[in-house]
């Protein structure tokens, strides 16, 4: 790359018109797949991701079942049309790794020990990708788990922060992720103030890393509020309609 793209202009505005510590617009919807036990959908900027949860159900193949807790399986997959150049539908090295990382970040929130010998399967399907899909994937997957009625200690929220164009930014998009200096994805359990995923790609000083972390946690808290709203929205509408009927 000979020419460097300008990621942040003189006014401190990013390529997609956001301020430095501004999230992309987020739309969340819960319970949109009728065949899954739980499901959710997220649009975060240009990202479009579906999550489906099945289970707890009988673990197949049988030998994988654990005697003392449920087996948690996760598949992160990008649709061939989710990126500009067609992606082979076979799971790539990156997708296999992300599946593991997402599974491990969700694991501490689920009461797996309540359902021995069963399996809980999470499917995360990226329909359109624009950077930060692992974080958005964790955010929707946790909503789908809650929708499936699986007991959880807390919802899990994820958000990235990093350095692009020489400055610390929140919620990096694809260009900022690729051309920027560093990316720090964080998954977080808000009620316990506990971090369940922390990665870093790129170079940051210790101070910058701490800044990125606080910025990401702040983003997580904002998304958490949206998550709770989305979960309640599914039932609130019916409840309000019934209350109107009452009054009549």
């Amino acid at each position, binding site marked *: 790359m000979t020419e460097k793209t300008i990621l942040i202009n003189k006014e401190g505005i990013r390529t997609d018109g956001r301020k430095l510590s501004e999230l992309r617009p987020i739309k969340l919807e819960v319970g949109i797949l009728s065949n899954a*036990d*739980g499901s959710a959908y997220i649009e975060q900027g240009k990202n479009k991701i579906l999550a489906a949860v099945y*289970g*707890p*159900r*009988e673990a197949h193949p049988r030998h994988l079942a654990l*005697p003392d807790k449920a087996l948690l399986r996760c598949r992160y997959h990008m649709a061939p049309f989710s990126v500009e150049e067609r992606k082979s539908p076979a799971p790539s090295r990156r997708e296999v790794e992300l599946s593991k990382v997402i599974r491990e970040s969700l694991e501490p*929130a689920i*009461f797996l020990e309540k*359902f*021995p*010998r*069963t399996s809980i399967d999470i499917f995360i399907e990226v329909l359109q990708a624009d950077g930060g899909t692992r974080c958005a994937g964790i955010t929707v997957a946790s909503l789908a788990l*809650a*929708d*499936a*009625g*699986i*007991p*959880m*200690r*807390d*919802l899990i929220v994820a958000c990235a922060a990093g350095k692009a164009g020489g400055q610390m930014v929140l919620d990096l998009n694809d260009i900022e992720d690729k051309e920027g200096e560093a990316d720090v994805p964080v998954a977080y*359990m*808000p*009620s*316990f103030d506990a971090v369940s995923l922390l990665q870093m790609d790129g170079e940051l000083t210790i101070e910058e890393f701490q800044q990125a972390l606080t910025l990401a946690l702040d983003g997580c808290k904002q998304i958490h509020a949206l*998550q*709770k709203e989305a*979960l*309640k929205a599914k*039932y*609130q509408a*019916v*409840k309000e309609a*019934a*209350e109107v*009927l*009452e009054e009549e």
Partner: protein
Amino acid sequence: MPFFYENRQIVTPGDLLAEGDYLTGSNTYKHDSKVYASRLGLVEYRGREIDVVALNTFYIPSVEDLVIGKMVEANLHGWTVDINSPYPAILRTPEALNRPFKPQRDELSEFLSVGDMILAKVISFDRTRDPNLTIREPDLGKIRYGQIVRVSPAKIPRIIGRKGSMISMLKKETRCNITVGQNGLVYVSGRSREDERIAISAIKKIEEEAHTSGLTDRVTDMVRKERGEVIQ
């Protein structure tokens, strides 16, 4: 002692419900003397106990539960039964027959075949073993006529109602015989298909609006209205 929500407000997993000396009811858990919700549901503060009435759950067997199941497989000594749960149930021959089963003479499929629906009772279940069923009790056994509706197991208490108020109203108004399986399957049999249809649509309405108040009255109105239309 502080409560953080109002009664019957919707809470999500991880919401802090109360702090201090409280007992955890269903769908809640305790951490550092704080009570949190573990499922999406409606919070209910009942004195010292805090409950969350879940909006969606799956069926976990419990001894003495009445369930409706589907035969999926016949083995050497019994059947595997799908009871709409993460754990497949087992119906062993001594629990199905009133006389000793002789493999030399008897064929399992003479009694129950794959695809049959049965009304059964859970006789044992723990973390280490799959649930065992019995049909050797009055009114249990193969379901031969009527219809079966599937609802979320979370809504079963609502279909039964407080002290059975909802179910007895439904039986009276629809003139159907209704048996509620704890596993989320409801068996409806009436004198006509039309009676059954009305009962099923009422059950569906209860499922959809389970978390709202004044439901019994609204369902009664609905059933009466539908029945009125039939008579005309």
